[in-house]
């Protein structure tokens, strides 16, 4: 199995996606930290500066990762999943023999590793820029790092539905990229609908991405130095169990569908 996963990484050699991911994980934190620095004003209290770092961190998770990462991972997954189809290498794997389910497991593991890697890169660069630009006090690194890791896993699971669609449509990279963007836009729009009408608040947490986002916000808030939130906002937050169940169902359902679709077109 390890060889299979290593193989998936080897197959991406010389593909532009890897440097692109690193570049993006560099640019976005810069943007976040910069905007957080701009809004800083003259307050120099420790509490406030810590708050700025927290703000950068939540912005990074909330905007950068929740919406951007499924896109990126979707594109990456379409590369990995179309690779055998486009190069007619599936037969070479089959005669080794490698089973479809193991191949899918390897490809998803590669996506997961990239997901975690991307999240951690983002966090590292965000911290680095905060330090360089002097945009807050860096603290509670251990928790934030660990949480980034968990978040990376969560966001990868939340991306699985897109991957299911990508496999189902089994079309070009372009269509898959569009699908990934569409997923991000869908999430945005669901979120904005709820902002208009707070009574829909329960629906939003049925969406794995948004559920993860809200759950993360809750975890962060529990930790954060200052909490100035309206009580209504707490309605948004899913319980741990809820988040766990939503992501769990997403995971199981996606895996089953993927296996089914992938098998269909490799026959």
């Amino acid at each position: 199995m390890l060889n299979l996963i290593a193989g998936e990484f080897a197959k991406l050699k010389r593909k532009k996606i890897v440097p692109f991911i690193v570049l993006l994980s560099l640019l976005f934190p810069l943007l976040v930290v910069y905007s957080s620095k701009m809004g800083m004003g003259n307050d120099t209290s420790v509490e406030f500066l810590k708050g700025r770092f927290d703000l950068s961190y939540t912005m990074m998770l909330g905007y950068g990762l929740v919406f951007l990462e499924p896109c990126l991972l979707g594109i990456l997954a379409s590369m990995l999943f179309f690779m055998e189809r486009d190069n007619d290498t599936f037969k070479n794997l089959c005669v080794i023999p490698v089973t479809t389910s193991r191949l899918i497991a390897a490809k998803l593991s590669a996506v997961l590793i990239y997901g975690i890697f991307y999240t951690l890169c983002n966090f590292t660069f965000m911290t680095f820029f905060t330090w360089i630009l002097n945009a807050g006090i860096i603290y509670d690194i251990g928790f934030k790092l660990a949480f980034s890791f968990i978040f990376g896993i969560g966001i990868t699971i939340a991306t699985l539905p897109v991957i299911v669609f990508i496999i189902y449509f089994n079309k070009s990279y372009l269509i898959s990229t569009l699908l990934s963007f569409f997923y991000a836009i869908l999430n945005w729009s669901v979120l904005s609908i709820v902002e208009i009408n707070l009574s829909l608040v329960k629906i939003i947490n049925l969406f794995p991405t948004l559920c993860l986002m809200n759950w993360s916000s809750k975890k962060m808030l529990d930790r954060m130095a200052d909490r100035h939130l309206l009580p209504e906002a707490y309605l948004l937050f899913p319980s741990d169990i809820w988040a766990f169940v939503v992501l769990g169902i997403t995971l199981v359902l996606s895996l089953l569908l993927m296996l089914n679709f992938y098998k269909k077109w490799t026959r």
Partner: protein
Amino acid sequence: MSDYIIETRNLTKKYGNQASVSELNIHVRKGRIYGLLGRNGAGKTTTMRMLLGLTVPTSGEVRIFGNPIQGNEKKILPRIGSLIESPGFYPNLTATENLKIFAKLRGLDNENYIKRALELVNLPYRDKKLFSQYSLGMKQRLAIALAVMHDPAVLILDEPINGLDPIGIAEMRSFIRELCDVKGKTILISSHILSEISLLADDIGIIDHGKLLEEESLAELEQKNRHYIHFTVSDSRQAAHLLETVFQTRTFKIRDKNNIQLMEMNLPVASITRCFVENGLEVSEAHLCEETLEDYFKKVTGGEGIA
């Protein structure tokens, strides 16, 4: 247990209503080269895919090493090397990197396997060239390197000489011959080129429209590759009588009222003709005929020919 390494029993594959392979029974013996000969679309690739479990048969069975392939893939497949249709590799990797991926999955950790396989097919080891920059023949060679890399006991090669130049073809032929003769490997190759198969194979199966028309050894086939003397005479029955009584031979065939073919070649044509004339027959034609393998294949495939 049968002595066949590869055996199919009523193997059938239908796509919709159309049968690509139907009721196929082939028998590949140990240590021999079996040539599957057929025209485009005859069902060679479909057959080979079923042998490897890449395509599930509609009905029938494939047995390799005496066991059905379905359910025994883990045991059987590692002992087979295969090349099916076009070479499939990752275009953004070099030859060595490509082979490395597959070698690792096969559990071959030693780089020497890769190096030796590339040497065998005359490709450079650790070349910088990417697979996408390879020529057709080079891609084909790499595919063969992949097939032999793990030193399998059985090779299944679908049109292995596709895209090779004449020297490459000759090299490939002696390479395959050597794998069989020196290393005792059992090899199944397919081709639509008759001369290729007749130069290489020990046993031949002719497949057309998914059906196996003939299966025999090359030696047997070559016997069918007969020479004969064709006579056109005024009365073929009388000629036959003369051949029997005067020349004591029964190896002839009366084609019709005027045409008769004599299979025995060591009788003097001149004295036969003279004898015919002396007995009042008119001989309008006497010539040597040769029915080549190709004519034979034309005949078995229904006159469309294989080339």
